[in-house]
């Protein structure tokens, strides 16, 4: 197709002034869209957190009057008591918001958008308008999901996994429109994600700057690229399944009906999507943590190539392990064996990554800035989350701990201890680039330590709850004699959770106040090597006056024989030592 290379239309120049609406609301600038995603998903993170607090109130203080419970209608909180159907709503919507509207957009929407063009040396995404459409589909999806709380019968209440027949039969769930809103919302969000992923993949393949070869891509970009492929291929599976579920609910089709269809088909489809989804939620976190750890250690990342292969390996294996969510579902037990082995094997790339991070720290010159603290917390928490996965992968042990709080502990060690610590680190790390100001490091450290301690106090004891057999998603454990000993632990967890939530307010305040009052950041406040630090903070429209050229691998820290301990990717050692001043320092 080289014959059609001549451009016909030229872009209208970027110089002219855009209206406020075009510049900040319906913007096509990847940086603005990234920040839009950031604000949206932090809002959903907050909503999800509030739902979690209600859950913890009920778990810690069942049957006691909820403080401030009067604001809820009597269909949710009656006489100050959280009703069981509302509790089911809470666990469902907490999971849904956190997975689909907080963590996923925070990682893929925010950092995918913000970092990909800036780190590969592109002026913008391949399809800026598609990018805008992606964000403006995610917003109505969020509203549709929230709308569930305001319709008769309440929001979806069949768990974030929405197993039919419970999820599709109002007679069984007591939920009417809420369950359908859940489906429609996820279909719209899925479209948004697919558009985003198409954009990211095209951008990474086609828009890299001169010299930015595949193995000069920072690991964050590698992770986001592979994640985008997972999004691209996994989300349509969910969309298809959710459409069938919606048809079952509305036009009386029979896909997952118990008598005429196959309820278990939903589980296969959902988890065939769901396990890649788990990696969608953790791979970008691993990527940004790699960037931050290299920066904090002032060392090249240890085993860059094996890190890349580990990401690819995880993404590949992620497609063949979905059955480990279904060991007790009535699936053929022989399949259970093969899913167990594939699941065990997927632990290996995760182990490689962990040891490589440790190898990066080894003999480093570690700077404990706030992003680095979060990144180290990520590594240590991910170790726990990864190791606890081995218990469930072992089918006999899973018989006992399946659907207990052990699973809840595991997923929170991966998604909170893993992804969310990485997100806190990444936000702090790229905040100066986004807003031109630093977040306050003192309050950042206070926030980190409070979060780290309260987080562990909240989720570590959940392992023990699970080992005592405490089922997940139960409204009140006091019904069972064998759980009578868990009440004290539940109270402790709840109080820790309240502290954890309160600590996040520090972050919110720091985030908002630093926007206006934070210390001015230079182009490269962390003395990093990435391309995004070679342009002013915040970068202008188009990112660079001229597209940069890349000369070095991504993590050239502490190169011997250089005065400064970092070598930006758009410079070579010769250029620096020849006396040319380093740009962007």
């Amino acid at each position, binding site marked *: *197709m080289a*014959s*059609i*290379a*001549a*451009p*016909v*239309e*030229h*872009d209208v120049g970027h110089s002219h002034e855009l209206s406020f609406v075009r510049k900040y609301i319906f913007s096509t600038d990847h940086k603005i869209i990234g920040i839009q995603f950031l604000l949206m998903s932090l809002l959903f993170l907050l909503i999800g957190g509030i739902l979690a607090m209600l859950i913890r109130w009920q778990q810690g203080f069942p049957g006691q009057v909820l403080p401030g419970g009067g604001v809820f209608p009597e269909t949710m909180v009656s006489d100050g008591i959280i009703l069981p159907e509302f509790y089911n709503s809470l666990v469902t919507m907490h999971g849904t918001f956190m997975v689909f509207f907080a963590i996923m957009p925070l990682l893929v929407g925010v950092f995918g958008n913000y970092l990909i063009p800036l780190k590969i040396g*592109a002026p913008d995404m*391949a*399809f800026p*308008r*598609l990018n805008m*459409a992606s964000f403006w589909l995610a917003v109505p999806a969020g509203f549709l999901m929230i709308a569930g709380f305001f319709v008769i019968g309440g929001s979806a209440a069949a768990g974030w996994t929405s197993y039919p027949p419970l999820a599709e039969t109002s007679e069984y769930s007591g939920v009417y429109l809420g369950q359908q809103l859940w489906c429609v919302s996820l279909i719209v969000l899925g479209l948004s994600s*697919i558009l985003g*992923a*198409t*954009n990211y*993949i*095209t951008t990474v*393949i*086609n*828009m*890299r*700057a*001169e010299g*930015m070869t595949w193995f000069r891509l920072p690991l964050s970009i590698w992770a986001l690229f592979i994640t985008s492929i997972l999004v*691209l*291929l*996994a*989300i*349509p*599976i969910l*969309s*298809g*399944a959710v*459409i*069938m579920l919606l*048809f*079952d609910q509305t*036009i*009386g*089709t*029979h*896909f997952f009906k118990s008598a*005429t*269809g*196959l309820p278990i*088909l939903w589980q*296969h*489809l959902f988890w065939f999507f769901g396990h890649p989804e788990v990696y969608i939620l953790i791979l970008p976190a691993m990527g940004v943590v790699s960037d931050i750890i290299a920066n904090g250690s002032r060392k090249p990342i240890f085993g860059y190539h094996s890190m890349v292969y580990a990401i690819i390996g995880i993404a590949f294996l992620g497609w063949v392990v979905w059955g480990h969510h279904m060991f007790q579902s009535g699936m053929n037990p022989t399949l259970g064996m093969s899913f167990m082995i594939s699941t065990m094997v997927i632990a290996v790339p995760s182990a490689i990554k962990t040891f490589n991070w440790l190898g990066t720290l080894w003999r480093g010159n570690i700077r404990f800035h706030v992003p680095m603290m979060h990144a180290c917390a990520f590594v240590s928490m991910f170790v726990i989350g990864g190791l606890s996965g081995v218990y469930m992968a072992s089918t006999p042990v899973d018989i006992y701990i399946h659907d207990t709080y052990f699973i809840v502990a595991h997923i929170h060690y991966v998604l909170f201890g893993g992804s969310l610590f990485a997100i806190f680190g990444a936000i702090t790390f790229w905040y100066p680039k986004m807003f031109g100001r630093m977040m306050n490091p003192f309050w950042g450290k206070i926030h980190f330590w409070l979060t780290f301690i309260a987080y562990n106090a909240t989720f570590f004891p959940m392992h023990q709850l699970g080992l005592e057999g405490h089922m997940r998603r139960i409204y009140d454990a006091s019904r069972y004699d064998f759980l009578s000993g868990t009440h004290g632990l539940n109270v402790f967890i709840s109080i820790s959770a309240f502290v954890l939530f309160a600590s996040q307010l520090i972050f919110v305040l720091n985030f908002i106040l630093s926007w206006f009052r934070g210390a001015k950041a230079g182009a490269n406040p962390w003395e990093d090597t990435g391309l995004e630090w070679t342009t002013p903070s915040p970068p202008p429209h188009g990112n660079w006056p001229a597209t940069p050229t890349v000369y070095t691998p991504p993590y050239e820290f502490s190169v011997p024989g250089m005065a400064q301990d970092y070598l930006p990717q758009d410079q070579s050692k010769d250029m620096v030592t020849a006396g040319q001043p380093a740009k962007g320092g």
Partner: protein
Amino acid sequence: MADAGVMRPMPHTARGAGVYNQKLGMWVFLGSEIMFFTALIGSYVILRVGNPGAWPEHGPREVLAIPITAANTFLLICSSVSMVKAFAAASVGDQKGLRLWLIATVLMGAAFVSVQAVEYTELVHKGFVPSAGLFGSTFYTMTGFHGFHVSVGVICMIYVTIRAFRGKYSAADHRGIEVIGLYWHFVDLVWIILFTIVYLI
């Protein structure tokens, strides 16, 4: 699809996959579409294997009108051919041929959807509705989503045709034609699979 007809200069082609963004983007997007139809077709196969009793004893032809749909299938294949013709015309700058073949493609696509609508109406009159068991559920979901894709394709094609009449495509740059063509051939291919699985087997 929104950018299918939008022309941009092609920077970085040399360093990328060797194709321009729109074409690469469409290929990537079609990867997603493949997975979507895989979910539907996979579910169909599992459901049918799991509940053979939910399908007519002597196969779908008991309920479905195979000859009409076969003709319709032929029509869709023809539209793919006319799409190829349109692209060939565009690549040599034959504006008249381009417009002619695009209109032919639009008409055949629209005719396909119309025949499908008539088919649905008749089936519903016969009492074969989505709630009439697994066969009805899967039939309407799969063919319906395919019909939806054809409709979206026809709408985009109309947009491209209007642009063609305004002379926006040349021998040097006719990327919009190529990109919509990719989508169109994909939709065609999916139909051949669906026709085989849903109607014939």
